[in-house]
């Protein structure tokens, strides 16, 4: 039995701890269930995002192959070197049931034909079409990254919450309750001893007086 003082003040403290632990346990259970419900939608989104990305990349890759065959590798490579501006994005965070998940915003890479850096006269439309397809790929990359990162974070949070719920359910609350039981038992014992002692004293007194 754990070393705990069997006093009324300890009993009161324990009762408070048990109440708090049980409240926490119920809240964490609800959080776990809520996260799992949300997870189904997230897995679906991540799967769709990845499928769209794959399809888009296949198309873009085909366009690139055709462009290289038509324009020549050196021409395409030189257009790639001339290209102005770097695609950028902002990484923010949003809250899903207390979990901070990434949000990609302000994706800036789409440029008009005249702003791409290379001359539209010395290149064919194939390069422009390839660039447009790759722009779509980059957009889907951002969506897929957001969906997958959200999924990873929520999975981690579900794991942590599950562990806490299990720890409360199988270790902490049973331990506190057994300590409470021990103190209750000892206090009852002390009361019985006191009652017996008082009875003995009373009997002695009554014998003396008689």
């Amino acid at each position, binding site marked *: 039995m754990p070393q705990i003082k069997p006093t009324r003040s300890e009993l009161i403290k324990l009762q408070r701890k048990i109440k708090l632990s049980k409240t926490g346990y119920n809240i964490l259970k609800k959080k776990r269930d809520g996260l799992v419900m949300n997870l189904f939608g997230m897995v679906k989104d991540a*799967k769709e995002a990845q499928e769209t990305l*794959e399809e888009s*990349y296949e198309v873009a890759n085909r366009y*690139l192959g055709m462009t290289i065959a038509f324009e020549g590798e050196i021409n395409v490579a030189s257009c790639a070197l001339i290209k102005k501006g770097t*695609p950028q*994005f902002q990484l923010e965070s949003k809250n899903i049931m207390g979990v901070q998940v990434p949000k990609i915003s302000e994706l800036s890479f789409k440029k008009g034909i005249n702003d791409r850096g290379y001359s539209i006269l010395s290149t064919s439309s194939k390069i422009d079409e390839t660039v447009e397809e790759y722009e779509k790929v980059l957009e889907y990359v951002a969506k897929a990254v957001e969906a997958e990162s959200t999924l990873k974070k929520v999975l981690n949070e579900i794991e942590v919450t599950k562990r806490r719920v299990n720890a409360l359910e199988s270790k902490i609350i049973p331990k506190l309750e057994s300590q409470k039981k021990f103190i209750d038992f000892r206090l009852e014992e002390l009361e019985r001893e006191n009652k017996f002692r008082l009875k003995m004293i009373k009997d002695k007194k009554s014998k003396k007086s008689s």
Partner: protein
Amino acid sequence: MEFGVIGDEQFVMGFKLLGIKKSKQIANNQEFEDYLIDMFKDKDVGIIIIQPEYYKNLSSKTKLKVDTSLKPTVIVLGEKLSDILRDKIKHVIGVDLWGN
């Protein structure tokens, strides 16, 4: 934040056409792993795009980092959801949601 791309010549060229400056053209698996580790240290890179052929040959330590890193996030273009993430879904909720 910027995009980073690592892969062979044709893989990288398409993204270079968009103006992605942080791109590395590689010739073998060791170079790929070295450049990938370097790119992880670059604080301006938020998303790294890599090829599945080279991802499969990564060391287990780097593969774990690739699969679990959130900043930067690595996306394997042309590859289905990594087995690690799929296993994690099965482990956490007991059902293979990805396969359904």
